[in-house]
């Protein structure tokens, strides 16, 4: 069950993971992208940490502050997508704070914003199975890891990687990997799941 405290802990852990793996994310974004995903996410999550340093009044304000930090600091493709995800969670949280419901609303926002779907080799290929697993009460690290790994053989149909055509296969999708950190830290945060 989400609270302001454990959600703050989760997102701070996510920020720490992003910071730690910043170069790796940009490395992944090099053969099939423009090399900025790590920098983009690190910049955004640093802003999230700053925003959450002042404890938000409630979950809605927490998600909203997170969304605004990501939208105004990440940029690129991942900024609007992660930003929209948290914006939708902010909206949904006014009426329902169930984690599965919130994540499903976030996923719907991502799909609408970016126009992609599962199999396009994007972060959606991690969000979709993870959200389903959360809603079924069955999220494990294996679900997350398998979802991230599933993007490797895919041929990208959305995002920058799609310009490479067949050459995009054989590389992990960077957005999928950063989303992997989001859900790994979610899973590891005491009291949420």
């Amino acid at each position, binding site marked *: 069950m989400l609270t302001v405290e454990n959600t703050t802990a989760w997102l701070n852990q996510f920020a720490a993971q992003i910071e730690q793996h910043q170069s790796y994310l940009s490395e992944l974004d090099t053969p099939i992208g423009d090399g900025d995903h790590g920098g983009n996410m690190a910049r955004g999550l640093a802003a999230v940490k700053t925003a959450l340093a002042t404890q938000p009044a409630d979950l809605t304000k927490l998600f909203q502050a997170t969304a605004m930090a990501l*939208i105004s600091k990440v940029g690129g493709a991942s*900024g609007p997508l992660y930003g929209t995800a948290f914006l939708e969670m902010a909206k949904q949280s006014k009426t329902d704070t169930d984690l599965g419901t919130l994540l499903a609303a976030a996923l719907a926002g991502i799909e609408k914003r970016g126009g992609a779907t599962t199999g396009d080799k994007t972060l959606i290929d991690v969000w979709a199975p993870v959200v389903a697993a959360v809603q079924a009460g069955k999220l494990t690290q294996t679900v997350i890891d398998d979802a991230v790994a599933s993007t490797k053989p895919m041929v990208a149909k959305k995002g920058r*990687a*799609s310009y490479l055509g067949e050459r995009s296969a054989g590389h992990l999708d960077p957005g999928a990997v950063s989303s992997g950190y989001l859900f790994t830290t979610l899973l590891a945060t005491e009291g949420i799941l």
Partner: protein
Amino acid sequence: MKKIINDPKNVVEEMVDGLVRSYPQYLTKLPDTEAMVRSDQASMKGKVGLVSGGGSGHEPAHAGFVGQGMLSAAVAGQVFTSPTPDQIYAAIKAVDQGKGVFLIIKNYSGDVMNFDMAKDMAELDDIQVKSIVVDDDIAVKDSLYTQGRRGVAGTVLMHKILGAAADQGASLDELETLANQVMPQLKTIAVALSAATVPEVGKPGFELADDEIEFGVGIHSEPGYRREKIKPSKALVQELLGKLDDELKLQADHQYAVLVNGMGATPLMDQYVFCHDLLDELAARDIEPAFMKVGNYMTSIDMAGISLTLLDMTTTNWLDYLQYPVKTIAWS
């Protein structure tokens, strides 16, 4: 990586600062943003505002095209990273004269989404916003099942045409119509001899051997569509023009504008040799360009390479727009 910079993290902030302080007569920076607005306020009065931008690293695009007869404002994101909606929205607000604002957006997942969110924010303020998504690059197949084609150097010709029309008083709807007429006639293809190095990344986006070129690159140093052996300029022209011919169906009695664009590190010497071969190759098809520009207009930092853009202007007055006088840093 050897560059004339300070901390890579501060490149965009320092670059924009250096630019606006070098050319204050053209550019004014909006506080707390990397958005640059036309300093010549009088020239924007009563006109539709034109806003463009994108990730940094394509200089002189886009701020070099801010000025009378071309853009009202340009927003600079982090290197190769679309700018964020709040900054684009600030630019829209700054140039809105009550006649609406037209956005020229390069077709990348991030650019489209960020400009779209900015449009939402502006419309909440009752500012009318329309846009064109530029997708002139032909290297990638357009399809429902892809991101679509990229917006590359042809974007500059879109800036020029819409800029002239806007300066002459075109309405928001007229600009949208014009942009949609131009788009299908605007095609670009590029070749790279070396990739760009993003400062914070510290190494090139891809490695080519001393005798290799990358065909079908974009402007963000992601690998292109195909790697080949280096060819002489004449052979490169034949291949690139051949691809454009497949798309545009070049005809002797048509009127074309041509933009030969350096990707950043390719000297004008090479660009002019390329033009020599290009003009011969066009002449062999009985074609003489009605308009031509050569130089660095939409670069990819320090990539070595060239992009070739053709615009079919037949039965239009777009030549007048291309020749319309402007007051910008990078287009004269």
